[in-house]
């Protein structure tokens, strides 16, 4: 996951401070040195790093730490606050024009992911905000860029406006807006050609589109893997166009994401969305504070809950809970539960949101192959109805049949059965203690596919 490398380094640095009853100037100096290196390694712009480290130093040796009862904790709090601040404080919303359509212009370097992001954004607006978007193919330079947007539009079933490669991008955009008005579409997303920020001619063209349309939002699309140059790029685009926000792409890679941290600091423009995968629904609103928590290993429970709310059927969840308590949980229920977890996204991402999960023994460095879930599913689906209801029916020949049916070895079938029994036992215990006064929920459930 993105930020992981940065997170690891910062966490180990910050951890040294946790239990400290006294924080000396030397401690702070050592910590800030480590923080500096961690940030530089993550491609955070060196100017930004300098300021950041300076601010932490000033605050950490100041009264708010020295007078505190838990100075170590206080320092961590400072780092988190500054980190959140660096990424943009609170989450910012997407504009809505009073007179529709709302016009959004997508700009950026070549290969940053403008076309894919345009499609994702259109999908997001339709799904989360119930809007009717129009995609506009204004990249007349790159071969097949229009084809790409049209294909994306077809996949999403969202209309795409294009006039071929001969038309002028300014005209295309103008006509697209008229078209949107006629069709009562309320968002127009203009996909412009990628260009270098130093290409005066092409930057002028963007200026013209902007002056002609007065868009409500101008988003700079930035590859999260960009190095020190991210700041120069963002500054140039901002100078020319006065950006309204930034969309980070390819954040599902293993980049340490320094660009994300630098851009806001330098341009003062908020990061509004983050691209988290190749599929067209993998665009997320960017929450600076949650991201800061994730980087410092404090987890991101809020996003996890939201994901669950988005994907899990509440009545079903209640039913399931009932079954767990009464220990009548069967393989059918288990399958259903797995479906729900699966719909929330890759295991790896979900775990990243659980506080402390990355420090859990055995979980670190585990490659989460979502295929494992598929295997478990195959095994369960190879059982007969009766077997799913009552696993005690299982005998050697049944197991052999299941193994054959699912294409997995018998040992794996055995393992799953054993884990299922353990799970049931644990559920019994949990529901048994829940009512009691001293009852504490046991942490962590040993799901067979984890």
């Amino acid at each position, binding site marked *: 996951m993105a930020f992981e490398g940065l997170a690891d380094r910062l966490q180990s640095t910050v951890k040294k401070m946790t239990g400290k009853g006294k924080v000396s100037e030397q401690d702070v100096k050592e910590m800030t040195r480590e923080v500096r290196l961690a940030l530089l390694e*993550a491609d955070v712009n060196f100017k930004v790093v300098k300021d950041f480290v300076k601010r932490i130093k000033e605050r950490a040796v100041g009264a708010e730490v020295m007078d505190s009862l838990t100075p170590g904790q206080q320092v961590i709090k400072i780092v988190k606050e500054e980190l959140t601040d660096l990424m943009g404080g609170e989450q910012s919303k997407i504009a809505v024009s009073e007179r529709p359509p709302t016009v959004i212009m997508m700009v950026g370097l070549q*290969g940053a992911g403008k076309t894919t992001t345009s499609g994702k954004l259109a999908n997001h607006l339709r799904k989360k905000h119930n809007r009717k978007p129009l995609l506009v193919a204004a990249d007349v*330079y790159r*071969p097949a860029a229009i084809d790409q*947007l049209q*294909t994306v539009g077809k996949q999403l079933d969202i209309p795409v406006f294009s006039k071929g490669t001969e038309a002028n991008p300014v005209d295309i955009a103008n006509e697209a807006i008229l078209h949107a008005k006629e069709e009562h579409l309320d968002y127009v997303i203009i996909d412009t050609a990628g260009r*270098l*920020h130093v290409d005066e001619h092409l930057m002028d063209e963007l200026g013209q589109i902007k002056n002609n349309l007065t868009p409500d939002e101008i988003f700079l699309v930035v590859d999260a893997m960009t190095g020190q140059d991210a700041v120069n*790029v963002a500054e140039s685009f901002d100078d020319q166009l006065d950006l309204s926000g930034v969309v980070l792409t390819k954040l599902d890679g293993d980049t340490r994401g320094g*660009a994300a941290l630098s851009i806001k600091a330098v341009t003062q423009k908020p990061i509004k969305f983050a691209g988290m995968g190749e599929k067209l629904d993998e665009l997320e609103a960017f929450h600076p504070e949650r991201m800061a928590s994730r980087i410092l290993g404090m987890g991101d429970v809020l996003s996890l809950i939201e994901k669950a709310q988005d994907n899990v059927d509440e009545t079903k969840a209640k039913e399931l809970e009932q079954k767990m308590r009464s220990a009548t949980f069967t393989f059918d229920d288990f399958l259903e539960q797995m479906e729900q977890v699966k719909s929330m996204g890759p295991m790896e991402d979900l775990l990243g949101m659980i506080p402390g999960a990355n420090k859990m023994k055995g979980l670190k460095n585990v490659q989460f192959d979502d295929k494992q879930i598929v295997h478990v599913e195959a095994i369960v689906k190879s059982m007969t109805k009766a077997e799913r209801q009552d696993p005690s029916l299982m005998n050697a020949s049944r197991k052999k049949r299941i193994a054959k049916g699912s294409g997995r070895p018998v040992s794996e079938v055995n393992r799953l059965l054993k884990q299922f029994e353990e799970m049931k036992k644990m559920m019994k215990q949990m529901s048994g203690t829940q009512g009691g006064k001293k009852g504490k929920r046991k942490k962590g459930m040993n799901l067979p596919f984890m």
Partner: protein
Amino acid sequence: MSFLKKLKEKFSASAETEEVSDKYKSGLEKTRESFSTKLNDLVARYRKVDEEFFEDLEEILISADVGVNTVMDLVEELEMEAKRQNIKDARDLKEVISEKLVEIYTGGEDTFKTQAPLNIQPDDLSVFLFVGVNGVGKTTSIGKLAYQLKQEGKKVVLVAGDTFRAGAIEQLSAWGERVGVDVIKHGEGSDPAAVIYDGIQAAKSRKADVLLCDTAGRLQNKVNLMNELSKVKRVIEREIPNAPHDVLLVLDATTGQNALSQAKTFSEATDVSGIVLTKLDGTAKGGIVLAIRKQLDIPVKFVGLGEKMTDLEAFDPNAFVYGLFADMLTDDEM
């Protein structure tokens, strides 16, 4: 003779490289400006070599994406060197700085020996596989290279192995048309290994000299996608012994430290033999190639210096260094 002088003389001695060096100079203009101007500024600002001087130097190098570790090592070496040679004047250190930078790339060998040409098979089909993360410019680089090879009189065939991204096949086809070479393709969503297999058969039967294989961009931490890439390579190996003759990792010059992780992981999956560094005509410095060369020993074979069909150049470490330091050569004693 001083190092920079030597470099310059070697360079002007070969007239044919002049054109290339001009291209580098203009392509790298932005890079050079920020880098050597900064270096010159630094030297002008600090007459004396002290701790602050080295701190500022560190920042200049870091801002070129050279990478913290490489920079730390380099600066440490420089500090020692300054002590050893008893250099006190900052101007005298300039020379040593550029020398050390080149040394990182060449590993101390003669710079002229470190050029890495394409591994072209003189009398047989050469297969080149292009790999890299999303949006670095694989398809565009293939188009440019196809043009170049065709100009050299070679029969080139392209194969559209990016069956995933919307519009990717059309993009390669457009390049094929523009350059005037055949493109082998299947539909979107088909098995990339199967397309590549067909590409090889077609290239063989059409008696092509060169087959350029496009693949879908993929982030290096997606295990399944990397496995798919290994499979594509195995298919090529099985059909033609010793092929692919080059596996070219396409890197975006604006990429930061993640480029190292890309180089490492793609090498593990496909034995990368060379790098194509794209988008070097922006302000990015591509300093990360120094670290990649140093830590993984993968040479840069081509650089992309613009959007035109002709804007792909064979990488010449001398020209690269010359481009970086050209300012310093002219306004100095030479």
